[in-house]
C-alpha cells in the first residue's frame, strides 16, 4: 500500500517506527520535546515513548553532541536534532575530533551508531545565521556518513537506514521540503545510504541536485520540456559516501552537466561533483560543467536580496539554455516556487 504523506510525516514515522523496534533508539536536542516538536517532525514521540527517550536539553550543543557519542558507545542509538544546521557549528569539535574518529581510534573495537538530524533553516528573512548547509564540510571528514534526502520516501527510508547504521550519520533536511507530499509505501523500510537516484529521466542534459535544489531542478525540467528539452535530474542524496557512478552514467549519456547545489560554490560539494564528472566524462562532455549555488556572500535578510542569494529554477533554465545554445525562454507566464507562494508537492 502506497500513501501520499509529507516529508515531515515521513521523518516522524521513521523515528517512531525505529523507536518501537529498538528500545535503544532515543531522540533529543534543544526543543525536541516542546509542543512545537521541531516543526512537528517529532510529533507524538514523547507521548508514546516518554520523556526518557524523547527529551529537550539545556542549550548546550557542544556537550549534547558528545553526549550522543557516549550513549552510542554504550549501545544506544541516539538521534540528535538541530533545528538549524548553523547551531551544529557549536558541536563541530565533538563531531569531527571525537565522533568521526572513535571507531578508528579504538582499532575498530567500538562503534558509534548515531544520527545527527540538522535542518537547513532557509526561510523568509532568516538572515546569515540560519541559512547555511555545510554538507561539504561534513562529507570532507572521513568517518561520517552524510545524506540529504529530498523526497518523503527517501526521507523515511534513509532515516530508518541511518538509525540502523553502525556509523555516525549526518542527516540533512531542508525546511522547505517539510510540506512536500510524496508517495511512501506503507511498509517502507530501509533505503540505502549510498547512492544517487535518477529523479526524472531525460536525454538532453543532466542536472545534478542536492536537497531542495531537486525541487527547483524538476520545475526547470517541466518548463524546459515544453520547449523540447529533455532534462535528466539526478538527486545526489548521499554526499558521503558519494555515488559518482549514477551521475557519470547520466552525463555520459547526455553530454552536458549542471550541478545545482544547495550551498555556496567555492570549495563546496559542487566542486567535487564537477571534478568527478570531468574526470570520468572527459570524452563525452560537450560543454563545461556548470555550477550553481548560493551567491558568495552571507545570506541577507531582506526578501529581494534573499531571493537573489538563493539559486532557483530560473538559474537552472538559463544555465541549460546556455549549454545547449538555446535562446532565452520567456518565463513570464510561469509559476515558480517562492515562500510567498508555498510549494505544493508532490514532485
Amino acid at each position, binding site marked *: 500500500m502506497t500513501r501520499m504523506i509529507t516529508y515531515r510525516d515521513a521523518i516522524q514515522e521513521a523515528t517512531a517506527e525505529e523507536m518501537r523496534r529498538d528500545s535503544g533508539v532515543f531522540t533529543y536536542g534543544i526543543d525536541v520535546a516542546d509542543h512545537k516538536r521541531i516543526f512537528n517532525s517529532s510529533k507524538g514521540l514523547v507521548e508514546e515513548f516518554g520523556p526518557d527517550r524523547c527529551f529537550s536539553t539545556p542549550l548546550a550543543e557542544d556537550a549534547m553532541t558528545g553526549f550522543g557519542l557516549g550513549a552510542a558507545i554504550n549501545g544506544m542509538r541516539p538521534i540528535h536534532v538541530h533545528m538549524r544546521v548553523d547551531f551544529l557549528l557549536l558541536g563541530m569539535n565533538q563531531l569531527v575530533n571525537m565522533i568521526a574518529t572513535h571507531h578508528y581510534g579504538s582499532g575498530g573495537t567500538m562503534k558509534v551508531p548515531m544520527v545527527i538530524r540538522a535542518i537547513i533553516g532557509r526561510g*523568509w528573512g532568516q538572515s546569515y545565521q540560519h541559512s547555511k548547509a555545510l554538507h561539504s564540510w561534513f562529507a570532507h571528514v572521513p568517518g561520517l556518513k552524510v545524506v540529504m534526502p529530498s523526497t518523503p520516501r527517501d526521507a523515511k527510508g534513509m532515516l530508518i537506514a541511518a538509525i540502523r547504521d553502525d556509523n555516525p550519520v549526518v542527516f540533512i533536511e531542508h525546511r522547505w521540503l517539510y510540506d512536500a507530499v510524496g508517495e511512501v509505501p506503507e511498509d517502507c523500510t530501509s533505503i540505502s545510504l549510498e547512492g544517487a537516484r535518477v529523479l526524472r529521466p531525460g536525454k538532453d542534459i543532466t542536472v545534478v541536485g542536492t536537497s531542495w535544489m531537486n525541487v527547483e531542478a524538476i520545475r526547470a525540467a517541466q518548463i524546459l520540456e515544453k520547449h523540447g528539452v529533455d532534462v535528466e535530474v539526478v538527486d545526489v542524496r548521499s554526499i558521503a559516501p558519494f555515488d559518482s557512478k549514477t551521475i557519470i552514467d547520466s552525463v555520459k549519456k547526455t553530454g552536458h552537466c549542471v550541478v545545482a547545489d544547495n550551498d555556496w560554490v567555492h570549495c563546496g560539494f559542487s566542486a567535487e561533483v564537477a571534478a568527478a564528472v570531468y574526470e570520468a566524462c572527459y570524452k563525452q562532455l560537450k560543454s563545461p560543467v556548470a555550477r550553481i549555488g548560493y551567491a558568495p556572500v552571507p545570506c541577507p535578510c531582506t526578501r529581494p536580496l534573499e531571493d537573489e542569494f538563493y539559486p532557483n529554477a530560473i538559474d537552472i533554465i538559463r544555465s541549460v539554455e546556455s549549454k545547449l545554445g538555446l535562446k532565452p525562454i520567456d518565463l513570464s507566464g510561469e509559476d515558480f516556487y517562492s515562500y510567498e507562494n508555498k510549494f505544493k508537492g508532490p514532485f
Partner: protein
Amino acid sequence: MKDLNIELYRKLYLIRKAEDAVRRDYFSDKMKTPMHMSTGGEAICVGVCHALANTDQVMGTYRSHGIYLAKSGETDQFFAEMYGKATGMAKGKAGSMHLTSPKSGLICTSAIVGTTIPVAAGAAYANKMQKNGKMVAVFFGDGAIDEGVFWETLNSACVMKLPVLFVCEDNDIAVHIPGKDRHGYRSISEVVERFDCTVFTSDSTDAEVIHKLTQDALKTIRDSGRPAFMHLKYFRYLEHVGVNEDFNQGYRDRIEYEKWRAKDPVDLQRAKLLRWCKEDEIRAIETEIESRIEQSIKKADAAPFSAPNELYEDVLA
C-alpha cells in the same frame, strides 16, 4: 528626579509603542523578518541603557528592539530595517535579529544564543587598552547561561579583570523550556557569586530601580576593576518568536502573566510620573513619540529596497 523619570518613561514608551506598531502592522506582511519582541522587558533595557553614557557600548541577542531603541532613540533606520529597505541601518541585510547602531554604541547582536557574550569581553579589553573609559554591557537570556561560552567568558573576564557588565535578562524560559528543566542549580546568582566579580539581582519592573542598580554595578566595575553580573527577572508577554500572545498553547500559565502585567513597566512608570507631571504633560510626550513612530513607518514603507547588486557589497572591507 523628575527629569530622570521623564527620560526613563520616554524610552519605555518608545519601545512599547514601536513594538505595538510592529504588532499592528506585521500582518501586512511587509516586515519580512522574524520578530522576537522585547515587550514586558522594557524596564531592563531602559534601566540599564540609561545608566550608560552615550559612548558606552551594548550588545544583545535577536531580541534587541529594546536596547536598540533605548540606546539610539531613533526609529527611522529601525523601521526601515524591519521593512528590509535600503534606508535601514544595514540596508535590509540585518533585519530584526541583527540590529546594530555603531554610532549609538550598539555594536553587535546575534541570533545564535550566547554568542555576543565573548564579543563583549573583547570589546571591553579594547576599551581597557585604549583607556577610553567606555563600558560594555552585554544582554543575554537565561537560555544563554546554559551555553559553555557564557562560562568561558565569565571566567576569562574575571581573570582578565575586564570592565564588562553581564546582563542576564531572565524570563525563565528559552523558547518554551523553563529554567528548571535546563538549570542544574538553584540560582545562577549563587553560582556566579563564587567568581571574582560582583553580582546584582532584581525582579523589579521599575526602570528607575534597574537604573539605580546599574549605576551601582558600573561603579563597582570601575572601583574594583572587575566585571559585574546583573541577574534581572522579567516576564515575556508574547510568544518566543512572533507578535502574538501564546497562552493558549498550554505550555505556560496566564496567571503568572497577570501577576507581572499588574506591575507592567510602562504603566508603572506612567503612574509614578503623575507624582511630578500632569496628565497632559505626559500625553504630550506620548503623542510626540507616537507621531515619530508613525512618520518612521511611513518613510520606511515608502523607501526603496536595495538594488540587487547590493547583495554583493560589504562581504569584505
